[in-house]
């Protein structure tokens, strides 16, 4: 009943109700259309039964079949997943350690440490990409290793630029930690590691999960850095799509892209859900 009331009975507009004013509302709606229309058409046309991607011919899933049947594409997807998984696991560990260090300790050069931690966020990706490429070439990184070790270079580069993002998220979570809880645990007899395991880690958990999902998404989606660190037999999903795009614009690319979009959005939704839920439980406490 209340909802119907709200829809049909407009309360008088207050001066600061900018969201009610039609010129501004139009701009917002146009912006949202601008942002979403290309993506929606891309997804829609992945079901289009036509090679040329312009006029709608009929609904089909055949391009999805083609995409899944494309061995190289699937291999690239597998590579991306493997890289993202490893890089997330290690990023969480390194990110947690960095966040813990900055939260707990005073030490000479702390500002420099913080600065270096932030660098990967600030440095343009192209610079990082070429730097890694030069580094790999110069240090004679082994090139002919079997799977999955040939993904090592990419994974290492991904970890280097992902874990600072995870560290930022985890550090934000640590700020809300009451130090007296750790002191209390010490007072009750716990040693350093026990305090970390029993008291601090449970508190960090929402941050670790959110940071992990962020790292996973960053790794999965990365193009520029991967482009410079991958070789002919260590192709990732975005790099593969890029080469497919350069050759031909077929709905197969749409299908593959849609899969990646759904995957990423699902992960983000989970992350947000976890954040939201941990915030709710925090409020009860």
């Amino acid at each position, binding site marked *: 009943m209340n909802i119907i009331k709200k829809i049909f009975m407009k309360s008088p507009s207050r001066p600061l109700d900018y969201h009610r004013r039609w010129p501004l*509302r139009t*701009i917002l709606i146009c912006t*949202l259309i601008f942002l979403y229309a290309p993506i929606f058409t891309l997804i829609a046309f992945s079901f289009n039964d036509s090679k040329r991607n312009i006029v709608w011919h009929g609904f089909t899933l055949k391009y999805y079949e083609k995409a899944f049947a494309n061995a190289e594409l699937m291999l690239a997807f597998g590579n991306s997943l493997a890289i993202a998984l490893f890089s997330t696991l290690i990023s969480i560990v390194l990110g947690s350690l960095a966040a813990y260090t900055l939260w707990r300790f005073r030490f000479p050069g702390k500002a420099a440490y913080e600065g*270096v931690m932030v660098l990967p966020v600030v440095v343009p990706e192209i610079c990082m990409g070429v730097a890694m490429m030069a580094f790999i070439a110069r240090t004679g990184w082994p090139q002919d290793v079997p799977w999955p070790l040939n993904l090592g270079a990419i994974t290492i580069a991904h970890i280097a630029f992902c874990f600072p993002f995870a560290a930022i998220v985890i550090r934000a979570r640590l700020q809300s930690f009451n130090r007296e809880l750790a002191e209390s645990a010490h007072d009750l007899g716990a040693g350093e590691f026990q305090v970390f395991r029993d008291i601090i880690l449970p508190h960090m958990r929402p941050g670790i999960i959110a940071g992990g999902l962020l790292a996973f998404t960053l790794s999965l989606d990365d*193009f520029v850095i991967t482009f410079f660190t991958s070789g002919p037999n260590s192709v990732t999903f*975005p790099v593969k799509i890029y080469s497919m795009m350069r050759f031909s614009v077929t709905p197969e690319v749409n299908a593959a892209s849609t899969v990646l979009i759904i995957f990423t959005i699902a992960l983000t939704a989970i992350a947000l859900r976890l954040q939201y839920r941990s915030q709710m439980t925090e409020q009860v406490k």
Partner: protein
Amino acid sequence: MEPWRKTPFVFLVSFLPPALWLAVFFVAPLSLLWLFSFGDKSGITDIELKWTLTNYARALDPLYLGVVLKSLWIAGATTAICIMIGLPVALVISFAPGRVQPWLLLLIILPFWTNLLIRTYALIAVLRGNGHVNSVLEWLWHIGDGILGMVGLGDYDLLGAGFTPLALLYNDGAVVTGLVYVHLPFMVLPLYAAFDRLDRSLIEASLDLGAGHVRTFFSIIAPLALPGIVSGVIITFIPALGAYLTPDLLGGADSQMIANIIERQFKAANDWPFGSALSFLLMYAAFFGMAMRGIFTKRAAEGGRR
């Protein structure tokens, strides 16, 4: 916070791994690049460290200077358009009822979570010669032509002899469109944060004293939200300046930006010292921008406390 000496073992265990990783896999590669930028190509794969500034000087060559200036111009245009769109959008969101705000923000950010490559590809399908925009325009042209025919003006070819599609792709405009498409959330978020922190009663006071909404915006809202605006400008401009994919996929031969030149030096042209010098020029610009932003927000925070 405790001094590290109190529990040195714990400190080292938590300090060293991240530090070492960054040192070896981030600082070292960048340092290598830095050394290269002072080097000289001696042979096909060898680089001799000569401590020369010729690579940096080459960036001022009219050929490359043109690219640098074009990059600045494209990034600037992108930022300007983002501000023009971002300000009203952020305004609407921050003054919307509380329950709706997180959803609106999510709607704006969600495209950001999709792959850059895919978003750019989607834009290609929209902007192409036979892409969606042109299809719609062609459809409208046919309607217009049909109406003219019915009215009896068909023979005059008032709309042209045939439909000519707009060249929306492979030019600077496409690159700017693509960059705006990608970077809009970066502008909206800081603006939203700044507007959200505003004291509403200040705006109401301005209206009460007789100022109109537009005047209130430029005299009250914008100056108070300035740190947020500056923040948004910097975190839009700097990444736009260093963009690689968007100009690569959407730009024409003359819409190259700095990142594309750098890529060419490392792959096709094999002139790593020059590429390194260009990379570092880009990096210095990025650092400068971030430093400016840091100083600005710090000064604004202190000013507020007074």
